[in-house]
């Protein structure tokens, strides 16, 4: 699963073996999930 680090803005792979969530480059703990490539259909209401 690909995430983006809010600290260094780099793309980060999450390692499930490591218990916590942490950026391997800068150690920042806040990661954001990027938008998928699917076309999202929204109702205008």
């Amino acid at each position, binding site marked *: 699963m690909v995430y983006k680090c809010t600290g260094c803005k780099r793309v980060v792979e999450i390692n499930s073996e490591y218990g916590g969530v942490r950026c391997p480059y800068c150690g920042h703990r806040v990661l954001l999930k990027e*938008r998928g490539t699917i*076309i*999202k*259909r*929204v*109702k*205008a209401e």
Partner: protein
Amino acid sequence: MNVDVIELSESRAQFVLSGVSSAFANALRRSMMAEVPSLAIDDVNIYENTSVLYDEVLALRLGLIPLRTDLDLYVLRSECKCEDGCPRCQVSLTLSVEGPKTVYSGDLQSSDPKVVPTETDIPIVKLKKDQKLVLEAIARLGKGKDHAKWQPAVACGYKNLPKIVISGCDRCGACVDVCPKNILKLNETVVVKDEIKCSLCHLCEKACESGAIKISADPASFVFSVEADGSMPCMEMVLRAADEIKKKAKALTKSLSGVT
């Protein structure tokens, strides 16, 4: 039934409808608001949205943009013979912009040159550097009773025709001072400048100690003021509203003809 047009332009109209019941006047008002169809963006396919607005918020903003509607060219989806949308019941509008730029309604590219936003300078979202917006919007006909975005009439209402009778005026001028609409003037006696503007507040009656001024409302005459959102001319909107009432009355007659 009689109609006196006071003001008529593309976007607004004022007229006096007389010789009808209040039920009919209200039926016409409700028909304009809820029964006359107009085009509005209904579905949005979002390919990319890195703006500060959520997809849903963006879709709602797009939906509220009034689109020019020719009701002879399009049919309601429920009345269309197609299964999954066709050029007779829907229009596609695309938007593809990259920041930094403010996206306006004029940036929407319509597949039908007749169906365009009525105003080109409605801000949709402000994009910063590296923010991108790619989407396809599907516009459909709909009715105001389903969603306000399909309502061609804006601020549409009526009041009874005011009647002001002055007799035995002692020229004290109290009513002239108290009138919030400034429609009274003091000459030899108090005269009414613009009767139709009276809001029937009765303040002048209370101010007049001699009881010379009497305000009443004609229960069979209605001053309509109608504003359109631009999707169709005001005149067409009122006519279509009357047609919708006619259609409904016909349907009622038909369904009752089976009952004996």
